[in-house]
């Protein structure tokens, strides 16, 4: 067999590689975990990489997956070889077109990294619930279980669809396969040519819509013929399995890798057989090999082609001796007779029996079970558990495996100590921080060993759900044989802890083998490190007889000029200690990899990395383990003993990374959780925190406003409350006439601060003696932690100012309000969260929030904790996420329901006037709730009402009590990013704006899809590089505000906190008070912009100074007083656009790599900015009657929205 290159790829790249070679039109849209497939395709086309026929595929990002599917449908109809990539909710959006594409017998392949569908919660992780939801579409469903299979089946799918004319969905498990890096054999053009028949391609093109030979397709049909026409496709589905098998056979002849629709492995006379598909089948394969080697008569059928389901072939794949078939589904269908694969297998066997099939002496018993939802681990031990269950006389059916179901008692038991990995595999686990480069270095290691030695390699990476200070765990395997272990490392030879703070937070040594290695990055010297370890860690090291190594990687990195990047150093340690390669050879290869990776970045970067490698070996020390000394301190509790019970019992396990151990009974039934939980998750991720200099401070509260994590707060309070203050607590006389006689404190939450430095950057006060110092200055956190923790605790207990007396429309006044959004897991220096925090301060006690999927839904609602919190009275924002695409509609639903219930409550109040009393009823019905004071009084009235109703035992009273809270003003907020507002959710957003209902829409505009890694949206500026716009976005940013203003009855504002903070605060107050739809476009700097996040607010100012971002307010209420509704709050641009663009890497990348294109785009953008400012200025000018010259409709077009017919 011909030798092909061996490469290290992940599943997404493997699929994209084939798809790009075999397509000419590709429509894409980002969604985890499939986004990288689109990114690769876009990049390769941008690099002019041609397809098999020598033309560069056209790659187009659409506004949603529904859009992508529509575009693909169109491209297919007009003769293109078209493909797309998606997962989960994206696949759901494609369903209507999938029915059409299949119904029209159109060859195509959709590549899907299978992901959980959102139900009680969203999950980005892998299972097959999405794929199962399209099994009725008529698409063939082809499963891959490993990265090599992804590559191979991708080609098989593209080849087979052309012949079968049945469209294919090629799927593989999200993350487990899509993101696993593995050494595989690549396919080349000869393989592609041998597999893809050009005659079939031409036949596809010949069926295309073409005015030279016009056809009519997509007709509407009547009852007379639809049915018959639908049945006309049957022969194609009947032929499809044979075509796929023939294609697989051809592939086997070419490559030597043989696949079948149903591949059996195991004992030839197996009595118990598992049937399953996807990556779990690889773990099962490993378990079956292990068990059959020990004489067990067990087997496994791996399903490749799930649709069309060839029942006959399935039956033939089963050994004749089989007694029990256990079918494992990676999905859940509540209310069904069983999950889909189970039902298919059962049907196939019954049909076999009904048609007098005689393969088996006795029809095997079939049991079905669920496993692996949302990437839940699926291990050989679980496989053994299933087989053991199958061996019982009365095996459990409809079971689950991998969890403890103590509610329905469906789960089966298994022995988690069973390990089936072969002895010649070397496994390693690395615990790192996202920012320290651990994952990148480990990917590099996998590549080095995979591509430069004979060894097989596997790398899999686990991330937590925080964006700042996130923990990454890398699982690496190296072996002499192909690795099928599609589960996390359980028997590590080597465990590295790259952050000493993890010692107190994570159990890292429970999976290291006896005699294994533990490497710790610590500033403690080798002869003193032992006593610094928690007792639990000492005990593990002693009990497992580990070799223990230490290095002060941060010092080495600093000395080598690497800053905080310890990746190269820790990678060198691994190679030096682990022995996977001879040390000298390993060092040489690391340096080779460094040169390869960084050569283009300049000799300086290469030299720094080389220095790091060289200095590592001199600083790596083995620690003599004092086996009798296990007397260290105990680990601190994960959450405070003062936390609520759920936090201590359940949330704490999740924080520890032990959520897998929680039973079903620990979970809420319907996805409902308490808010106010982030306060208990003290992460201590800041190296430095701000320290207040009371003398220099001018008490402007700007630092409080911009803090993304609500970790710096201000209070003014009576002096006598200071009596019990801790000794280091700082206070000074409050400034300002409203605060006379009060003390003022600016306090940092040391354990919640991320150390981003935004507060220091925004601080306008400078120390007069030493101008480098401000009123707050960063200082190392560790020495301050204890004292400031106590200070912060004391600070929180200080009384709040009465919000009714504060000038909440100003920065200073608003920032004395209690934030009801705190300590989120957003990026350090996030540009979005200050807006949310401000909203929570102003309106949080009465806010109902509909949050579009995106960054804000992840840092807002991803377990284990939420930053949304409550005030002392227990009131606070209530929050939910529906989907990515429907946040506006979801929020409108809130408004409709609240208004209806309030109306009902008012009706009941009126009906019960005599019982309740005129005074209270009248007061409630006429309540002015336009401000805090009115709301507070109304709350008191509602409490009184409830008290009176409680004494009435009538249905009406109880009904009124049930809706009485709706009489308190509600502030409905619809929150999302630009991907939602400008693209996928625009239709709904537009509809809600047109509805005239009182909702507040906050668009956190980062100008890219931030959450999925920075893909272009229609908000992306012209000239900026983004994923899906690798050559710089050629079109101008969509002017969403202008579009919204066209309605005339919508409050529209554009703000940038860093440019004008008072304007931002004032806008929020105005927008919320507007009794109709309000739209706030909030410029949010972002990590994806390629900026120093510490300077994020300055970037916002620059964006406004150059005119890229405008500040304005359009308030329809002003027309009533003869004023122009539009107020342009920006000054004329006075910073050259180039100066702004030069300060952000998203523009610089193009300016440096393609100056001509960058210059052209910049010139166009400069013109557009100038023209836009001129237009806004013209519209903001008043004419004789005070109205805008280009007056927009003054009548709210409330009824302009017709329902779709």
């Amino acid at each position, binding site marked *: 067999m011909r030798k092909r290159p061996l490469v290290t790829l992940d599943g997404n790249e493997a699929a994209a590689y084939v798809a790009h070679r075999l397509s000419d039109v590709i429509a894409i849209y980002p969604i*985890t975990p499939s986004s990288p497939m689109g990114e690769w395709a876009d990049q390769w086309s941008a690099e002019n990489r041609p397809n098999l026929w020598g033309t560069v595929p056209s790659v187009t990002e659409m506004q949603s997956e529904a859009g992508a599917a529509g575009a693909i449908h169109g491209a297919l109809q007009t003769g293109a070889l078209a493909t797309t990539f998606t997962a989960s909710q994206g696949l759901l959006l494609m369903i209507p077109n999938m029915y059409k594409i299949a119904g029209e017998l159109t060859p195509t392949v959709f590549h899907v990294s299978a992901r959980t569908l959102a139900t009680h919660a969203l999950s980005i992780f892998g299972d097959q619930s999405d794929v199962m939801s399209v099994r009725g579409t008529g698409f063939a469903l082809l499963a891959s279980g490993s990265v090599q299979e992804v590559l191979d089946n991708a080609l098989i799918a593209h080849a087979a669809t052309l012949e079968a004319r049945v469209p294919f969905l090629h799927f593989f498990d999200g993350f487990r396969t899509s*993101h696993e890096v593995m050494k595989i054999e690549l396919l080349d053009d000869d393989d592609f040519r041998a597999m893809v028949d050009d005659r079939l391609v031409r036949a596809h093109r010949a069926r295309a819509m073409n005015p030279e030979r016009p056809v009519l397709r997509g007709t509407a049909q009547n009852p007379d013929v639809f049915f018959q026409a639908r049945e006309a496709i049957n022969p194609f589905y009947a032929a499809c399995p044979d075509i796929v098998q023939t294609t697989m056979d051809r592939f086997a002849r070419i490559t030597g890798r043989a696949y079948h629709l149903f591949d059996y492995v195991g004992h030839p006379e197996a009595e118990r057989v598992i049937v399953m598909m996807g990556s779990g089948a690889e773990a099962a394969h490993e378990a079956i090999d292990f068990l059959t080697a020990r004489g067990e008569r067990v087997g496994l059928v791996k399903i490749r082609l799930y649709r069309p389901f060839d029942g006959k072939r399935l039956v033939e794949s089963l050994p004749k001796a089989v007694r029990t078939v256990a079918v494992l589904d990676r999905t859940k269908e509540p209310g069904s007779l069983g999950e889909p694969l189970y039902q298919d297998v059962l049907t196939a066997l019954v049909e076999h029996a009904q048609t007098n099939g005689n393969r088996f002496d006795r029809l095997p018993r079939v049991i079905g079970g669920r496993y692996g939802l949302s990437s839940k681990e699926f291990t050989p031990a679980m496989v053994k558990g299933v087989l053991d269950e199958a061996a019982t006389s009365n095996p459990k059916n409809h079971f689950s495996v991998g969890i403890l179901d103590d509610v329905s008692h469906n789960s089966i038991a298994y022995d988690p100590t069973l390990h089936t990995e072969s002895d010649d595999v070397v496994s390693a686990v690395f615990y790192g921080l996202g920012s320290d480069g651990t994952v990148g270095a480990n990917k590099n290691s996998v590549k080095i060993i995979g591509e430069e030695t004979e060894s097989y390699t596997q790398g899999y990476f686990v991330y937590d759900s925080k964006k700042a200070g996130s923990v990454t765990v890398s699982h690496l395997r190296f072996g002499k044989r192909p690795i099928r272990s599609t589960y996390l490392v359980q028997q590590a030879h080597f465990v590295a802890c790259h952050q000493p703070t993890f010692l107190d937070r994570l159990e890292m040594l429970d999976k290291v083998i006896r005699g294994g290695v533990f490497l710790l990055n610590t500033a403690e010297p080798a002869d003193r490190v032992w006593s610094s370890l928690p007792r639990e860690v000492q005990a593990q090291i002693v009990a497992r007889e580990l070799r223990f190594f230490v290095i002060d990687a941060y010092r080495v990195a600093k000395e080598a000029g690497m800053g905080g990047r310890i990746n190269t150093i820790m990678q060198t340690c691994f190679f030096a200690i682990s022995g996977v390669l001879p040390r000298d050879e390993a060092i040489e290869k690391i340096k080779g990899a460094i040169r390869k990776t960084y050569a283009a970045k300049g000799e300086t*970067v290469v*030299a720094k990395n080389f220095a790091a490698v060289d200095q590592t070996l001199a600083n790596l020390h083995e620690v003599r383990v004092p086996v009798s000394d296990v007397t260290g301190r105990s680990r601190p509790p994960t959450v405070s003993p003062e936390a609520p019970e759920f936090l201590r019992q359940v949330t704490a396990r999740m924080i520890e990374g032990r959520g897998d151990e929680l039973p079903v009974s620990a979970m809420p039934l319907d996805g409902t959780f308490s808010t106010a939980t982030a306060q208990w998750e003290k992460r201590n991720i800041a190296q430095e925190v701000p320290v207040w200099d009371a003398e220099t401070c001018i008490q402007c509260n700007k630092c409080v406003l911009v803090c993304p994590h609500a970790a710096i707060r201000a209070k003014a309070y009576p002096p006598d409350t200071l009596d019990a203050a801790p000794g280091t607590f700082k206070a000074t006389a409050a400034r300002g006439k409203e605060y006379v006689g009060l003390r003022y404190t600016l306090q940092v939450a040391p354990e919640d601060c991320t150390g981003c430095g935004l507060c220091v950057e925004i601080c306008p006060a400078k120390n007069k003696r030493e*101008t480098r110092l401000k009123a707050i200055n960063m200082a190392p956190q560790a020495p301050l932690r204890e004292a400031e923790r106590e200070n912060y605790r004391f600070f929180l207990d200080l009384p709040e100012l009465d919000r009714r007396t504060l000038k909440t429309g100003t920065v200073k006044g608003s920032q004395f309000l209690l934030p009801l959004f705190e300590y989120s897991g957003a990026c350090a220096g996030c540009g979005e969260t200050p807006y949310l925090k401000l909203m929570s301060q102003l309106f949080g006690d009465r806010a109902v929030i509909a949050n579009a999927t995106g960054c804000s839904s992840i840092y807002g609602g991803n377990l284990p904790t939420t930053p949304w919190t409550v005030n002392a009275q227990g009131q606070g924002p209530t929050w939910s996420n529906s989907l990515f695409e429907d946040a506006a509609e979801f929020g409108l639903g809130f408004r409709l329901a609240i208004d209806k219930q309030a109306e009902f409550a008012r009706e009941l109040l009126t009906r019960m006037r005599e019982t309740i009393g005129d005074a209270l009823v009248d007061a409630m019905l006429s309540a002015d709730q336009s401000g805090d004071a009115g709301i507070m009084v109304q709350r008191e009235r509602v409490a009184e009402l409830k008290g009176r109703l409680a004494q009435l035992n009538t249905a009406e009273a109880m009904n009124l009590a049930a809706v009485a809270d709706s009489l308190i003003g509600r502030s409905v907020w619809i929150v999302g990013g630009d991907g939602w507002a400008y693209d996928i959710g625009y239709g709904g957003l537009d509809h809600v704006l047109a509805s005239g209902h009182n909702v507040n829409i906050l668009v956190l505009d980062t100008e890219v899809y931030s959450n999925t*890694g920075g893909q272009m949206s229609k908000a992306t500026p012209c000239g900026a590089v983004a*994923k899906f716009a*690798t050559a710089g976005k050629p079109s101008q940013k969509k002017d969403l505000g202008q579009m919204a203003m066209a309605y005339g009855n919508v409050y529209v504002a554009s703000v940038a906190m860093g440019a004008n903070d008072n304007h931002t605060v004032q806008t929020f107050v105005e927008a919320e008070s507007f009794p109709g739809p309000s739209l706030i476009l909030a410029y949010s700097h972002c990590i994806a912009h390629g900026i120093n996040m510490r300077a994020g607010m300055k970037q916002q100012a620059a964006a406004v100074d150059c005119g890229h971002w405008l500040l304005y307010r359009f308030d329809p209420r002003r027309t009533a007083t003869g004023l122009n509704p539009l107020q342009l709050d920006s000054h004329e641009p006075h910073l050259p656009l180039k100066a702004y663009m030069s300060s952000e890497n998203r523009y*610089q990348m193009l300016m440096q790599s393609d100056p001509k294109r960058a210059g052209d785009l910049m010139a166009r953008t400069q013109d557009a900015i100038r023209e836009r400012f001129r237009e806004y200025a013209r519209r903001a000018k008043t004419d004789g009657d005070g109205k805008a010259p280009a007056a927009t409709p003054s009548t709210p077009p409330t009824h302009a929205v017709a329902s779709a017919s």
Partner: protein
Amino acid sequence: MDLATNYLGLRLKNPLVAGASPVSRDLDTVRALEDAGVAAIVLASLFQEEVDHQLAAHAHFAEFGAYSSPEALTYVPARDYTPRHPDAYLEHLRQAAGAVDVPVIASLNGATAGGWIEHARMIEEAGASAIELNVYHVAADPGRSAQQVEDLYVEVLRAVKNTVGIPVSMKLSPYFSSLAHFARRLDKEGVDGLVLFNRFYQPDIDLNELTVVPNLSLSAPHEMRLPLRWIAILDPLIEASLAASTGVYTSHDVLKLLMTGADAVMLVAVLLRHGPSIVADMLHGIEDWLHVNEYLSVHQLQGSMNHRACADPSAFERANYVKALQSYCG
């Protein structure tokens, strides 16, 4: 009138050279300079610090925030966006060298030896007639002696001279303890020419922000006297070519500098202020003066008033200061 001169071993049709400045960043302006009569063009500098900074920034942002979130493994496309600054500079150099007949000299601006060799080689390959090294060093480190500072310059010179075959000049600052000694040292090391002097960005203070802001002001005419003195002193001492830079605005300035021994005169501020067309006027002025004063060539003029040739050599030394004061007081 023979205006020709020899600078760095290059025969120039006249002594006027467009010095390194943003003027030469545009190809059309490069052509206009030649049309106006300059005899050579020093291109705007390739800033080593800028290149290093851009590469480092690019490397930083390519990995910034990467592998922290399962949904956003990276934030920038995987495509190679390595800054093309050297490429762009070299391309400009290539085009400029092809667009004009006069020699095009590349300027390399930096503070350390690392990375210069590579850039120097690329500059030679791109068609530069010579390289002007602008070692940009503010001697603010109290731990580094004058000797060590000078060694840095020599190290750079050696490295570049060993790398390229084209002439190499060095642009110096006036802040050396013993400039004459140092100039002779460089001369012995084989420098092909010295350009006197470069101008540093001088810091200013923003009173509103209480920040230090860099500032560059164009030289004023009176500043020409500094190179004038030093060219006069150095001309008899060293073999290498001498070029005057700083404060040259008029034909008379040029004539004076030629008399003290300049082989070429760099025009910067005057071009930035008045554009290339001023060159033709200056050339006319030089020719007229030479003609009126019955000189036959520039060569005849060059060095005629240097430290050795003039009637009162001490006037270029300390006595000059005293005399100036006296004349001012008088």
